[in-house]
């Protein structure tokens, strides 16, 4: 009995020491499984971000490999730049507008798809395709459809009197931003749809049946069952969409290059211009860092307010 006790405490100790170091066999194996991810991430995200942050402290003429250390002056420049603040505003507009449209449309499509009993499979495929078509193609098709001579959307819009017969809508200051948001939403709303639809399908029928038995109308069932069941994913989808849209570059650049007259110059566009047209890589990086800080702060507040992870089982 005595020796037993000694032995068992020894085992217990052995375990806890390894445990304390966090390096028992289990933890080692755990880390081994995520090692490839870490490695990849180190290459493709961490190092470049570190590099960018480092570069933000220098004056970097892109057409010359010689950097000059300038401390925080790039940051000062960014924060005193008028165009920075106006782009931040436009960027916020773009982000909020896109996220709201995508959320509503995505949710709506998901709800409809989930209820259909005919043609569901085909329409789902069609909707998903929108998400999978390359951005370049979405842009090219959009440009074609807004073409002033043969563009079908141009003609539709000008017939409705939204814009002039010879106005290129994407080149029009009033229309550029809404249209960029809409074109983006055509593609990205489906992201929300995919998440939501998956979730909707996972709601057991009997939840609805139980509610029907209680006499609940469709609206009440939606309010009391569907909505609470999908809030979790919606919160996550909204966060992801907002982050993605805030950093969105390609679709805006390809559609309008930030124009007309800066009407769609969001922060990423401004940063890109600063880096590659004004050859001011250091300032561009400072801008990216400031954007990152804003975004991280925003995400933090969002988490504090809604805590989307709490809605999803870990």
């Amino acid at each position, binding site marked *: 009995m005595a020796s037993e006790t000694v032995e068992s405490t020894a085992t217990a100790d052995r375990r806890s020491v390894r445990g304390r170091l966090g390096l028992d066999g289990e933890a080692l194996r755990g880390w081994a499984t995520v090692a490839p*991810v*870490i490695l990849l991430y180190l*290459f493709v995200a961490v190092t470049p971000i570190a590099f960018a942050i480092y570069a933000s402290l220098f004056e970097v003429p892109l057409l010359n490999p010689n950097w000059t250390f300038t401390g925080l002056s790039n940051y000062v420049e960014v924060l005193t730049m008028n165009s920075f603040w106006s782009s931040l505003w436009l960027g916020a507009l773009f982000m909020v507008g896109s996220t709201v449209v995508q959320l509503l449309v995505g949710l709506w499509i998901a709800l409809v798809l989930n209820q259909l009993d005919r043609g569901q499979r085909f329409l789902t495929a069609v909707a998903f395709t929108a998400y999978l*078509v390359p951005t370049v193609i979405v842009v090219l098709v959009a440009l074609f459809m807004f073409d002033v*001579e043969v563009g079908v959307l141009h003609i539709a819009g000008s017939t409705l009197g939204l814009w002039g017969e010879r106005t290129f809508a994407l080149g029009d200051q009033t229309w550029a931003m809404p249209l960029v948001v809409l074109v983006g939403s055509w593609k990205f709303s489906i992201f929300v749809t*995919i998440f939501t639809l998956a979730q909707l399908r996972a709601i057991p029928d009997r939840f609805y049946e139980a509610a029907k038995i209680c006499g609940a109308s469709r609206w009440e069932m939606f309010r009391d069952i569907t909505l609470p069941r999908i809030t979790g*994913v919606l919160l996550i989808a909204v966060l992801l969409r907002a982050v993605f849209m805030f950093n969105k570059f390609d679709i805006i650049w390809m559609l309008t290059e930030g124009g007309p007259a800066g009407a769609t110059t969001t922060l*990423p566009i401004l940063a890109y211009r600063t880096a590659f047209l004004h050859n001011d890589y250091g300032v561009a990086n400072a801008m990216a860092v400031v954007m990152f800080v804003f975004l991280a702060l925003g995400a933090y507040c969002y988490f504090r307010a809604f805590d989307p992870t709490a809605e999803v089982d870990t």
Partner: protein
Amino acid sequence: MSTPTETPSETETEGGTRLSYETRDRLYNLALYGSAALFSAVILFPIYWMVQNAFTDSQTVITEFSWLPSPETVTLDNFSVLAAGAVPRYVINTIVVTAGTIVVVVAVSLVAGYGMARFRFRYKQSFAQFLLLGYMFSPIVLGLPLYLIWSEIGLLNAQIGLVIALSSISMPFAVWLMWKYIQTIPESMEESAWIAGASRWRTFWDVVVPQTKPAIVACALFAFAIAWNDFTFAQILLPSQESTTFAPGIMRLIDQGGYTSWGDIMAVSLLMTVPPLLFAYFLQEYLLKGFEVRTR
């Protein structure tokens, strides 16, 4: 039940204006199918437009507007662009890169997701959060550092280099998805295999992987979307004509000619739209299952 007064839910709560059940049902169906028609139209119309113009004589495309294709101008000529010059190369490169990305993403995230779901180790949660933080940095200024790193390690112009880059940006989401999905597979299945004498690795292979199919499809789809879509990374990391992919390639083509043939572009676009459509049509069940994140 037999008289209205006994069914307060019907009359009292909503007042006398409440429509009869049948009418509401009909209105609901009208709204439902109306909605379906509306959004399908919105989604399908650009695709229809793409198809219509891809099959229309390229001169007509830019000069005449018509809602329907007219028989005189229907032609397959635009598709000759698919066989000409660099386009086939771009498309093949895109397929290679996409396939590579899918394979890497699925393999790596499967293993990592398994580790996250099944092993207990410290800082696991922090690790997951750290991955997501990567999404918050605007990617446009990352081109230069990436270029420098890639040229340092000799991965420039190698499709494997692009595959690695694309894989790692797909990673946070893919790992998260796998992690959550594998958590839903009962551990007892693995345990029963261990007891039968199967090693951990063998068990993973025989028992876990086959059951992770939906998540694999979902990750594959996500990777597909990233790779098939990618413009920026390919532009930076695959500068050479031989190795580059569709998106930067087509942009170069448009630039070089100094002239855009909408007909040709619509033809190429159609080609790039068909694989996603097939993907979405045949794998949607798995995909939706894979994306299903269990909420409380």
